[in-house]
């Protein structure tokens, strides 16, 4: 759902750029407070994995493809703020290095996939995980639903931006974007739960949201 140049109005580009820059700046201060020595290489590897996995478009119905986003995956692994920073870095590299997503639309893409996808997705994950009574099955249920929703919500945000920009009316863009991304989101949920369960098997302490429950990080972290 990387928006290219030309789809959005200058007003939307400017507004989302300001919001994204502001939230990222706040995110930097949050990450700065918590990121330890051990998390630095983990940040590099997570970003590399997300970049590589985002290249792997899988076919969905009707001659359309979709790819893994990794926003909720990264949030559960590194915390939501580090996830926002990682998604932002990936989007900047994709935009400047690979012409994937327009430079004018960078603010919107960070907003849709970083703020809505990573922060919003993580918020939903936390709510569902709490509601489930913090059981193991609840963890995976929350992970599947929130990663699916992160795609649908991000795509819906893109539809709203397209509508405000006058590119496509909301009653056309919203159902179309949410509909196709509801399918792509299924892939997101499958990849996210599979990847996290594999990491939990080998290094449960690296999964922050789970490790906190297990007390592996201690109260202070």
């Amino acid at each position, binding site marked *: *759902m*990387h*928006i*290219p*140049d*030309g*789809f959005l109005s200058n007003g939307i580009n400017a507004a989302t750029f300001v919001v994204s820059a502001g939230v990222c700046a706040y995110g*930097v201060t949050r*990450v*700065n407070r*918590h*990121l*330890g*020595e051990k998390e*630095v*290489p*983990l*940040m*590099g*590897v*997570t*970003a*590399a*994995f997300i*970049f*590589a*996995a985002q*290249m*792997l*478009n*899988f*076919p969905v119905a*009707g*001659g*359309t*493809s*979709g*790819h893994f986003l990794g926003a909720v995956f990264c949030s559960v692994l590194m915390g939501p703020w580090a996830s926002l*920073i*990682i998604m932002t*870095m990936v989007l900047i*590299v*994709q935009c*400047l*290095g*690979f*012409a*994937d997503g*327009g*430079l004018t639309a960078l603010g919107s893409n960070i907003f849709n996939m970083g703020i809505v996808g990573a922060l919003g997705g993580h918020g939903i994950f936390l709510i569902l995980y709490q509601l489930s009574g913090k059981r193991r099955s609840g963890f995976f249920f929350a992970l599947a639903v929130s990663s699916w929703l992160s795609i649908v919500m991000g*795509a819906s945000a*893109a539809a709203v931006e*397209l509508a405000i920009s006058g590119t*496509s009316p909301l009653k*056309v*863009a919203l159902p*179309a974007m949410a509909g*196709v*991304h509801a399918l792509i989101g299924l892939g997101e949920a499958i990849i996210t739960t599979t990847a996290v369960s594999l990491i939990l098997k080998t*290094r449960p302490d690296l999964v922050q949201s789970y490790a906190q429950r297990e007390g592996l990080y201690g109260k202070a972290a």
Partner: protein
Amino acid sequence: MERRLKGFLWMGLGISLLLALFLSPFASSSPDGLEKVAEDKGFAEKAEGFSLWKCSPFPDYAISWIENEKVSTALSGLVGTLAIFFIAMGVGKLLKRSTA
């Protein structure tokens, strides 16, 4: 750094590089969700002929002087994956709390 963590991280990086090198050339080239909606709803042409940033070294995950499309995608993916790894490590180093 603890040895087991090191191994895990190397494995993660290795998996990422393998995905970029060997799977990305075989990824679906169908339009993605947004492109498909843009085609169906008639606003795809708005993206054509305008781009603010024209200096991408690998536009559309391709290296211009490599003719074989699969090799071109694989190598650009490999370079990108390594680049983002070092960038994210560098940013992480700058961001980590000073009293570690």
